[in-house]
């Protein structure tokens, strides 16, 4: 059933920018149109390009926000989410906790050498 829904009406997650729109709904309670507009502006693409996997695959790779196909050395998981939080200007809870635990919130000059 998720595959059927995805084919019929889905943005396709990290194939395009569905996850990014989802982040805006979760962190800012944005309704769909506002969330899509916000994300498109942050990505500096049109709304149509934002849902085009042929555009988004390369853009996501260049921005380091994760691609759906496996690319060695490309940002994945928490790495990608760190970049997503920065790109969208939002607080992502798991990113903040990761940075806190990894000591990344501490200025580099004060980290243990």
């Amino acid at each position: 059933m998720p595959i059927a829904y995805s084919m019929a009406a889905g943005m396709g997650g990290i194939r395009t920018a569905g996850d990014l729109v989802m982040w805006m709904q979760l962190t800012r309670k944005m309704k769909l149109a506002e969330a899509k507009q916000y994300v498109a502006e942050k990505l500096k693409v049109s709304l149509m390009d934002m849902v085009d996997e042929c555009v988004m695959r390369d853009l996501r790779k260049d921005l380091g926000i994760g691609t759906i196909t496996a690319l060695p050395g490309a940002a994945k998981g928490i790495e990608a989410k760190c970049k997503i939080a920065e790109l969208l200007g939002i607080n992502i809870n798991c990113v903040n906790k990761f940075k806190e635990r990894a000591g990344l919130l501490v200025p580099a000059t004060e980290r243990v050498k």
Partner: protein
Amino acid sequence: MVKDVLTRMGDGQRIKMSPAQIKEDLLAGTKDAADRGRIPELGSSELEQLFEIIADKNRIVGVEPGEEIVFTDDDTVVRARDDEGAGGGIGLPISRMLAILVHERAYAQDSALIDSAASVNVMEVKAEIAGEMTAYETASLLTTIPLLYELSPALLWYFRPLGPYGNPADLLPQGKIQEARDAQEEAAVHLMNDLIYIGEQLSSIGCDCFNLDTTAASGDAEFYGVLKAVSKLKEVAPNMAVEMGMAGEFVLGMHGQIKFNGQRLAGMFPHQQVKVAEAAGVDIFGPAINTNCSESFPWNIARTVTFVKQTVIVSNIPVHVNAGMGVGGVPMHPTPPIDCVTRVAKAMVQVGKVDGL
């Protein structure tokens, strides 16, 4: 010559209907929703749009480019790992971690969900919370899409014989109405405290969203307990979103007098449920409109879209309609037919104007 259209009943059985019959059922469905919910019926152009979607000769239909929406769900792990049961599982010998990655990478979904490995009982999840937190942390390191933690906040586990409180199902037939209300109120407070505890623990390890699915399955007292828990969680765990998915279109008045913010919860329909959810601090709301197996798919989809459209209009937060087996217009069948599933998606987007499914 006007051809009959291949469609289905609410139980998935394939039937043929003439265009006139379909239009009659569409009208009857929207009227049913409008009467029950005291909301506007769908207009003639909207009904015509639904007719075109249903009568489309293709097996699979879709939205136009640019109309795409996003999805949350309640079933990422259960769907892959479990038996058919209530979630239509496909019984793969697969870990929660792998199921989530398949959901993200193979199914290309916009979010994923992790739920308890062992239990649907809130009290048991609370007892195993350390393991749940560890599982969430590990999965969160590898996922790029938002990862939700799902719980069904079922009040029934708090009633005897499984829980400590009197069971309304026993008390009400004995005419012990006040005792039944008292038991539900006490159980709701216990549920609220358990949800707050679990939510705080999850937020402390970076949970992106707490998904409270099938809210109000046990009626208005359960709805009250969940709303109070969400209100508190928004104070103590402000960085964790909350999604609330409902159990049904109508909040059962098992208590009958319980209120939230001065509003009686019993009898609420989706367009009313979303407003109290919003007031509590919910970030995404998921209405559930039940499929009537004795009526046709056209009847069910018109009825569902009527409720959903009004809910979206009044809501200030994203609305993700529950659209699964037996809800959202989807036929009640363990293998929901693709022809109906894709038509539900298209109808929800183009007529219901939803923010997601």
